[in-house]
């Protein structure tokens, strides 16, 4: 076999393994988060204060992890959906449905706890499958397909709860949102566990490759034998599962199912977390750890506002500003312009 006519530059392939790109993609969200933490270290008293009471860790940082866990859970499913060049707007509504199902079942005498959890998650996955069917099989545009459930979902939740706010005080169910395990709140363990499960599911099997390939070039993926419809169906179903878990946490937090407010606007936070994490809305490469960092960034920002007594009405403005900065930092165009600017300054 004759060699290529062009001479190959010295191979440096061994230094270009995925791991390195994986970390470099993490650079910007982590930098944003670090900046925020440094700001708080200087200007927000007690931000880094931690103490152990009754074998449980307390402090602002723990609160951030705890409260951020819902968006973290949603972001995992959302990252996969966005990687297929889709979006799932229904996750907030699915959270409400999940909460409603759990609250209704737990209050029924004689329903074993595992059945409650199983049924709740089952319903959430079913909701995800509905989205998946619309997008994967009927080729409805994702934004439209999931908008249907986003609008209708809260109505479904109302139907389940008969329009009431259903309270419960089952110790096992309230543990999910309020309990602690080895010093840390249970929701933190739950979201970390889901991160691990998602990483293994996508990176130890070929699922991740197929998702990225379908998101990057669906035609070419189909021609290579990948069933794009199936891949899409799966990611929406998975996003439903994540929303179900987040819904359980949300309901358990307040010990009731509030169909109107559970998970309200959280779909937007989840999308934002994924984008901050480096996954492009046009599909392709996805970054799970990045999405988690993105979710933490959003939660840290919210907590900072709260601790600095920014009124809840004004809080979205500085939040939007901070997010804008992170997103601009991520834009390749903006980065090029900035490096160009510094280079010119150094030259002159």
């Amino acid at each position, binding site marked *: *076999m*004759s*060699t*290529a*006519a*062009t*001479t*190959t*530059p*010295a*191979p*440096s*392939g*061994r*230094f*270009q*393994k*995925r791991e390195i*790109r994986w970390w470099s993609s993490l650079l910007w969200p982590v930098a944003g988060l670090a900046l925020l933490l440094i700001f708080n270290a200087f200007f927000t008293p007690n931000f880094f204060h931690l103490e152990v009471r009754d074998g449980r860790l307390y402090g602002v940082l723990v609160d951030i992890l705890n409260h951020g866990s819902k968006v973290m859970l949603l972001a995992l499913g959302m990252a996969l959906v966005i990687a297929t060049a889709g979006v799932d707007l229904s996750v907030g509504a699915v959270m409400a449905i999940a909460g409603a199902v759990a609250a209704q079942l737990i209050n029924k005498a004689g329903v074993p706890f595992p059945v409650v959890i199983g049924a709740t998650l089952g319903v959430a996955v079913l909701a995800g499958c509905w989205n998946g069917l619309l997008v994967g099989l009927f080729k409805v545009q994702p934004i439209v397909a999931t908008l249907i459930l986003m609008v209708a979902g809260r109505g479904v939740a109302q139907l389940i709860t008969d329009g009431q706010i259903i309270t419960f005080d089952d110790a096992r169910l309230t543990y999910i949102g309020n309990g602690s395990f080895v010093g840390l709140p249970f929701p933190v363990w739950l979201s970390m566990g889901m991160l691990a499960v998602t990483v293994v599911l996508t990176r*130890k*099997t*070929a*699922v991740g*490759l*197929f998702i*990225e*390939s379908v998101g*990057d*070039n669906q*035609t*070419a*993926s*189909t*021609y*290579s*034998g*990948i*069933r794009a419809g199936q891949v899409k169906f799966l990611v929406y179903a998975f996003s439903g599962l994540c929303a179900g878990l987040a819904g359980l946490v949300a309901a358990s937090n307040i010990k009731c199912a509030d169909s109107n407010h559970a998970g309200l606007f959280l779909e937007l936070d989840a999308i934002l977390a994924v984008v901050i994490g480096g996954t492009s809305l046009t599909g*392709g*490469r996805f970054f799970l750890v990045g999405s988690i960092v993105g979710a933490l960034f959003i939660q840290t920002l919210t907590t900072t506002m709260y601790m600095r007594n920014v009124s809840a009405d004004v809080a979205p403005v500085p939040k939007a500003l901070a997010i804008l900065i992170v997103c601009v930092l991520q834009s390749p165009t903006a980065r090029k312009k900035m490096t160009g600017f510094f280079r010119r300054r150094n030259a002159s």
Partner: protein
Amino acid sequence: MENDSKALLEIRGLAKSFPGVKALQGVDFTVRRGEVHALMGENGAGKSTLIKVLTGVYPRDAGIVRLEGTEIRPTSPKSAEALGISTVYQEVNLIPQLSVAENICLGRQPTRLGLIRWGAMARHAEAALARLDLKLDVKQQLSACSIAIQQMVAIARALDVSAKLLILDEPTSSLDENEVEELFKIIRKLRAEGLGIVIVTHFLDQVYAIADRITVLRDGQLVGEYEAAKLPRMDLVTRMIGKELSQLAPKQTTESVEASAPKREPFVEFRQCGRTGSIAPMDLTIGKGEILGLAGLLGSGRTETARLMFGIDKIQTGEMFVDGKSAAFKSPGEAIRAGFAFTPENRKSDGIIPHLSIRENIVLALQARQGVAKAISRKQQDEIVDKFIKVLGISTPGPEQLVMNLSGGNQQKVLLARWLATQPRLLILDEPTRGIDVGAKAEILKLVQSLGKDGVSILFISSELEEVVRYSERVVVLRDRAKVGELTGSQITEEGIMHTIAAPQSK
């Protein structure tokens, strides 16, 4: 510094690097007024990069670019246009859903009080086309025009901004012979008007038909500038690929193919397979280890036949047999499991996964066939990928490079590797050498031949008759989306194929 009084564009010592690749190094390039200058080189030689630097897509790392004696530094295609450098790209860069007039005037529509003056726009567009001796209804939608007309509309648009230098990047790759002649007429006219014209093309015939001067690049470096009339064709090829052609193309004449057309067991059989609006019912047989050529003009149904065979489109009439057993593929996945493989004509949109690495692109089809659960281990992946990078001579700094950063020829090799990794029994190659340099072309064709010898059946689709004639054992000729003939043995000549295409219709 030499000062050529007629020089319109002078580039000296141009350099541009990308991570891991020196795309251009110390390149000089001069275009004079009233000349057609061909920019030649293999894929990866740096032609595209040169043009992109010139048109402001990339900033340059070093070097001087002068237009009419003044140094320029375009920062975007728009600023290059303002300076008088206009480009018409390989893929026609227009908006098919808009009218011809809108396409010509897009971005600089005549307006009054912020409203478009449609009449003035139409007149303006007509005037722009008239400069090319072209008269057409400028209000019709662009997509209704033939590719050739679209190409000319693109040129009209480029010239409309008082261009001094016109760059044509592969302008003829989707045109037929008459259309090419039309285009050349226009180029000659513009040359007479004193425009400097840079043309990038892979067709040697066309270079000699139109170019006054030739600049050859290789591996991002300047090989030389020559007067076309004084550079024999052989020398040009040698300079482009840096080795003798005879080394690349095996001098395999008719003997081996013709003498022994062995009796082959059929592998794939079409029995009156067809699809409405796609291709008329036809019979077709591909033997085991046979290279079957599929010839015909653009739009004659070659790609449609491939899509039918590969399960992309469903067969509506007739029946397909694989290994003598009836088979009806509902998806490419099923075809792949039957041992089929398909490299599509349009590499960029249907072939590569641009933002994934070479490694991921290569293992994709094999992994898809094995299913989600049986992940190919990273170690196996690396073995497969290293093997094919070596065997196919894929030129890259490493397997983790994104495929989008490779040249066309290397992308095609990656696609071939993707399929060879599945050890296919039938390889459908749709225009495998389109837009690829001479060297890579020869390598790919050699590979096709050796695969045939290994017992892989090949359906070979190419619009270059010479290739079809040279490598096919049998040739099926298509015209107007129907099979019109089948040639074997000594009938397989370029003339024979053209006769079959041109023969009066039987029905």
